[in-house]
């Protein structure tokens, strides 16, 4: 889902398989802090009784990750890069019901 939305090439290894890196632009990052809303919270607390996947949360976090990635990609594009290597994601709960999603990587130009 992520690579399609951002026509920049992303990998999470420290090189680009099959291509040569010709320029490095350094660290690029994107983050978003999202809170879950009450409707989802009520559904989640019901789902908490029987356990299993909380689809509302899965979607919420996916959207947030997409947004963080988009911001990172925008930053890389500003630098004139055409790929980001060594992408990492990190999630931190900053408050009850709110989470920060961070995406970071190294912007490069590949052949």
């Amino acid at each position, binding site marked *: *889902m992520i*690579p399609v939305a951002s026509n920049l090439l992303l990998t999470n290894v420290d090189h*680009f398989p*099959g291509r040569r890196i010709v320029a490095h632009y350094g660290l690029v990052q994107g983050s978003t802090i999202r809170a879950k809303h009450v409707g989802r919270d009520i559904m989640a607390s019901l789902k908490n009784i*029987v356990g299993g996947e909380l689809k509302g*949360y899965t979607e919420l976090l996916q959207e947030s990750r997409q947004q963080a990635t988009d911001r990172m990609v925008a930053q890389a594009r500003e630098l004139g890069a055409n790929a980001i290597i060594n992408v990492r994601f990190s999630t931190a709960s900053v408050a009850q019901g709110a*989470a920060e999603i961070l995406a970071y990587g190294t912007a490069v130009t590949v052949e």
Partner: protein
Amino acid sequence: MELIFSLLGWIILLCLLGLGFGVGKYLEAQHYTSIKQREAASLTVPVVTFKQLTDDRPVASATLAVGSVAVSVDYYKRFLAGFRMFFGGEMRSYSSLLDRARREAILRMRESAPDAHLFLNCRLETSSISKGERNTIGTVEVVAYATAVTFADEIHPQTAG
């Protein structure tokens, strides 16, 4: 009057425990069946944790593949875990939750890149997104991500033949 209320409290607790035990167990069994089926179907495409390709085959494309799932433990298991917190030891009820979540996340990552021949540098990340009562695990999110590599000289094993 007070007696009625406390009795009602116990009845609700028992109902929640029963619901958690029965439905939770059923849903978990169902989930495991689906996981095992999908894992068996995707066995031909390796997911590895190393970063370098081991041979010099021509690469057609490389993209980031991501899969994630947020899961929560059922009421009965959370109740049991409360006791476990008191005595210490392995919390088996939680290991199955995290095992399911991780395997599901990897499967979703695979499904997000159905044409890949290899998933390079697979990373798993687990984060607790909400805490339950008394600091027990509430909801856990697992993300699996890797670089999906497609080789130029290979027909995809799942579409071949």
